[in-house]
């Protein structure tokens, strides 16, 4: 008996070890691109050209030294902030694009969450047949890929003369149904007794909304804001179609057009671009997980 127990335990430890190794493998694979981008942003231009020159040398035939092989460097030979200094002080282009991203994404996040809070409250309080129809419609719209929704968006932008202005992206973003969908599911979990008590106390709907409902879903609002933020911080399709003016395009599009001479800068800019979303992630991981968990079913 004792021996059998021992082998079983050994087996279990063995199994756990394998699982740990598996997890470690995936963790390394998942972290590698991010970590490499960050560490490489501290490399000097000469070192970068020497290591990766080949990859980005399509455009110019610079005479600087270039290795035959590509040297993947985890840690730069010489850590320098040179690239950051150039980006922040000498090349306003990147900062401008960064700012473009900010003024597109911030209004979308605030607007979408704000309008969704109103709509979701209404959907929670109103339980008619129309509610289910509307909810279904929103789910369908939410799940449509860009290829489908960009054609209507482009049409509206042309009718309203908004094409090539930031509003062409902001307005459809503000009314995107995703937040309404998710927030409705969060709000349904507010205990009915709470709203009932407020009603008995003679509170108006608006008062219940601002004083009972919103404080109750503060964390939900945060998690939805994170999800919306990352979606739009990462946008590529909408600017290409709705905002062809490259001067107004966000950094997410511009980063891919970087040419050979600026590889060093590109890593620094890429890192700067990650910072807002990574900070949000580190601060709000629990909320993010909560948000994803609640998106896990299409039913209202």
């Amino acid at each position, binding site marked *: 008996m004792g021996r059998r127990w021992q082998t079983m335990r050994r087996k279990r430890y063995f199994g756990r070890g394998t699982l740990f190794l598996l997890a470690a493998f995936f963790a390394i694979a998942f972290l590698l691109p991010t970590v490499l981008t960050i560490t490489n942003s501290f490399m000097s231009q000469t070192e970068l050209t020497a290591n990766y020159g080949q990859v980005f040398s399509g455009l110019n035939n610079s005479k600087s030294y270039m290795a035959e092989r590509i040297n993947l460097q985890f840690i730069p030979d010489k850590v320098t902030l040179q690239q950051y200094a150039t980006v922040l002080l000498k090349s306003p282009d990147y900062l401008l694009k960064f700012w473009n991203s900010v003024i597109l994404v911030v209004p979308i996040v605030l607007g979408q969450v704000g309008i969704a809070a109103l709509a979701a409250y209404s959907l929670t309080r109103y339980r008619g047949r129309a509610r289910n129809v509307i909810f279904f419609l929103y789910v369908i719209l939410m799940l*449509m890929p860009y290829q489908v929704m960009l054609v209507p968006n482009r049409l509206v932008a042309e009718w309203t003369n908004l094409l090539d202005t930031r509003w062409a992206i902001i307005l459809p973003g503000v009314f995107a149904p995703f937040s309404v969908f998710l927030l409705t599911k969060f709000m349904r979990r507010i205990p009915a007794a709470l709203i009932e008590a407020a009603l008995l106390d003679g509170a108006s709907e608006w008062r219940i909304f601002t004083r009972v409902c919103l404080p109750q879903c503060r964390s939900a609002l945060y998690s939805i804001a994170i999800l919306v933020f990352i979606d739009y911080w990462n946008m590529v399709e909408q600017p290409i179609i709705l905002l062809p003016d490259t001067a107004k395009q966000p950094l997410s599009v511009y980063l891919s057009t970087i040419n050979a001479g600026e590889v060093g800068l590109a890593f620094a800019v890429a890192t700067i671009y*990650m910072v807002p979303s990574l900070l949000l992630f580190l601060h709000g991981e629990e909320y993010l997980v909560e948000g994803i968990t609640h998106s896990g079913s299409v039913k209202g």
Partner: protein
Amino acid sequence: MKQISKKTIKPQKRHALPRLFRGHVSRDRLVSIAMFWPSLLGVTVFFIIPFLVVCYYAVINNPIQHEFVFLKNFADLLQNSSFRLAAKNTLTFSAVAVPLAVSLALLLALVLEARIPLKSQFRTFFLSPMMVPVASIVLIWQVLFHYNGAVNDWLAIFGVAKIDWLKSEYNQLVVVLLFLWKNLGYNMILFMAGLSNIPRDLLEVAEVEGATPFFKFWHIKLRFLSPTILFVTILSLINSFKVFREIYLLTGDYPYEGLYMLQHFMNNNFASLDYQRLSAAALLMAVVMVVLIAILFVAEDKLGKDVEG
């Protein structure tokens, strides 16, 4: 609604007219309905009305003559060689990427369910790619998968010959990896939520009865996870249609043939402003999506009830 005060709200009955048109609507009710209007108005103006126009554009010959041609645009579209290529590539990509996205995410969720050290750290690591903008990591992706790049060096250790990842038919594989990198975390969280919903006592009983881990996985966990699996599958399918973003950032406007996706097709037609073709394509895709979503709803209903009952 019944559990909310009976003083202010009458019991619900089925009426022919929506509440708004029936009179005797309390002020509060009006307020709560009015709160929905900003959203509904925006959705109507920015999505529904233009989408109806898209449907109309899809069945006329051109925006000047407005002649009704019924399915001609669709027939033309299906004849179009670049549309066929794009559709084929997109479907091939989905067929490879979606099963991997589902099964690997489930694997990760199961790994994190086991009692291993550093569990919460692993979850953070797996989830982190979701928060990293693709634009930020395409540079390193190009370095890794270059002909003389790191991946080929690593593979050389195992005696694999050099592959020109981005410029050969392997480029779909590179994009599949990028897709998995980006999406596995999200799917994993959904599976973790699904796993935590499995009744503990059922698993304990199975344990006492001497069920093997395999039996527990196959007959209990998978069964309870079936709605989640379905949801994750459809979500991944939708996300796989969005992979244009990764490809665009990796290869630019004109990718190699294997990576020419539906969104590239749309982009090129936006450039030439061929709204008939665009509308037909959008409508066709919308129909496919609605069918998928309908399957999702019905199946969730069935499977969900199955498990609950």
